């Protein structure tokens, strides 16, 4: 395995980890405020559909992104309404959102485009192009001619869509807001002890809605990334369980932003390795492709069972807040 191969796997890791990272951060915001969110998957899916559909009809990928975010926020609002205002069970509301999204996206796609529940293929204007940083080679064949530094720069650092850089920027931003601002302090307090926040005269309901909506925005970006950057168009069930892997990453990361980054990169790396090495031959024995493709999931189980240590969720997570009277 040469240096360029390693770089290419890392490059693939970054691409595959981006939707996980955005969804994981969305879950982090929501759960830090005490609202469990297993509807990440559904919100991503709906955002992926609307981003692709509107990008196709308007011809502008940015309008598509906004539409995806808006659709995801509508579902987030629904989740907020059910679990904050009406104090319903947060897990059930999340499950409902996943089912709603999986069905709704396909039905609307069929009605609008009549192509069997998918959107038409997007032209290059309606997709996020890869950003080429100055001085970077773009094609893999040119990159192979460069030296190690140039290869690292061209392959790993340059050549991602703007949403990848945005997702990476969200990590320090999330950390700063949660740990260095008044809003963040209150938000974390709401997830630990909402009564104390209420006593201080701050609206618990308001803070929780804010957190749920921020989660909606992040899921919206994640969905738009899937359909308009990673591929060109929406297909049925394209989120393919990424929302749930993001939840696993969130637990692995113990609800902390920087840990979330490393957890998502790790899961992305497993996926990239599984894609790249399908037929490994060890002497006479060939490792079956089934094993390589199951590897990411096996490793998720091993990591969660053995390496995570003690993960303590926010104390008030999952419980609707009822003012004592």
């Amino acid at each position, binding site marked *: 395995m040469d240096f360029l*191969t390693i770089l290419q796997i890392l490059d693939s890791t970054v*691409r595959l980890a981006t939707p996980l990272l955005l969804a994981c951060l969305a879950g982090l915001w929501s759960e830090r405020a005490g609202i469990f969110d297993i509807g990440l998957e559904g919100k991503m899916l709906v955002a992926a559909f609307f981003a692709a559909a509107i990008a196709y009809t308007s011809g502008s990928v940015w309008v598509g992104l906004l539409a995806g975010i808006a659709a995801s926020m509508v579902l987030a609002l629904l989740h907020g309404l059910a679990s904050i205002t009406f104090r319903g069970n947060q897990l059930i509301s999340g499950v409902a959102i996943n089912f709603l999204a999986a069905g709704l996206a396909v039905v609307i796609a069929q009605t609008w485009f009549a192509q069997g529940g998918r959107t038409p293929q997007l032209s290059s204007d309606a997709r996020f192009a890869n950003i080429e940083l100055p001085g970077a080679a773009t094609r893999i064949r040119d990159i192979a001619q460069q030296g190690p530094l140039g290869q690292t720069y061209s392959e790993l650092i340059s050549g991602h869509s703007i949403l990848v850089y945005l997702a990476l920027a969200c990590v320090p931003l999330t950390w700063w807001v949660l740990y260095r601002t008044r809003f963040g302090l209150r938000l974390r307090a709401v997830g630990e002890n909402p009564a104390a926040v209420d006593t201080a005269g701050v609206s618990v309901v308001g803070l929780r809605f804010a957190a749920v909506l921020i989660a909606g925005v992040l899921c919206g970006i994640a969905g738009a990334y899937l359909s308009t950057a990673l591929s*060109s168009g929406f*297909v*049925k069930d394209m989120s393919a369980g990424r929302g749930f892997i993001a939840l696993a990453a969130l637990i692995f990361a113990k609800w902390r932003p920087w840990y979330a980054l490393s957890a998502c990169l790790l899961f992305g790396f497993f996926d990239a390795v599984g894609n790249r090495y*399908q037929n490994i031959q060890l002497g006479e024995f060939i490792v079956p492709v*089934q094993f390589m493709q199951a590897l990411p999931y096996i490793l998720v189980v091993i990591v969660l069972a053995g390496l995570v240590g003690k993960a303590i969720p926010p104390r008030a997570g999952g419980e609707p807040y009822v003012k004592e009277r």
Partner: protein
Amino acid sequence: MTMKTTLMGAAAALAMTATGALADGPAIIFDLGGKFDRSFNEAAFNGAELWASETGGTYREIELTSDAQREQAMRRLAEAGANPIVMAGFSQATPLSVVAPDYPDTTFVIIDGVVDAPNVRSVIFSEHEGSYLVGMLAAMASETGTVSFVGGMDIPLISRFACGYAQGAAAVNGDIKVIANMTGTTPSAWNDPVRGGELTRGQIAQGSDVVFAAAGGTGLGVLQVATDEGIFSIGVDSNQNYLHPGSVLTSMLKRVDVAVHDAFTTGAEVATGIHVFGLAEEGVGYALDENNAELITAEMQAAVDTARAAIIAGEIKVHNFTDDGTCPVQMQ
């Protein structure tokens, strides 16, 4: 158990009443890739539509959304009086072998699978021969001496594509390196363009500059990445040259539309047994149109046409992977 089966049957029947109440017409069942996969199922759909526009007739259709529906879809159509019932996709073979004996008066046509029953017509394509031709084109277009293949689900049928492709490439350039990857091992592998794209990037990184996608809807992701990275791609089943003109080198045509059209036109009297559509029957081939006219040079075309004639005449034997499960050309 009986109760459960009855209930499930009733639920399925309810779910499928929406397909309309037309007796005696032909019917078609599409596989999980979806009717508009721009590839295999879409070719089947086009054949049915051609029949409908020629005769003004109507046909029933069911688009499967999960494996569990297969048998119920067949029974539902057979009980409603549809005849013949055409089904696209090898996955239908096992349920059909159960269903076919129960409806001896109905003719079933299965594409890509073989079911040994007196009322079943099994249509098989010689994909290895068509793939051989596009493999030759790939090897002639390649500058790096490395070409690659992305398959859908890891099944012998798709290995037949891969093996034919590798043999064609090796016939042009004995030193050629052929990289072959499969998208997955479950039917969802037919519809995963993101993974298809990632596999393609990996192959390009290993030097490939022509990629052949035989992967249904997944192939759309392969062709997209090939266009983005500036290499050639080869489409499959339907003519996919128009998807990315200038980047799609050609398409390996598999005339599923002809098979469906034939069955619909002949109707219930269609001959049963195994029917092989090869190069000689124009069942497989490569696509040449205005979108790739500039990519295929006259000498490439001449070489491929010579090989085509030689295969038909029996002078070149293309090894069929499904005969013995091995391929004479080493793939990575």
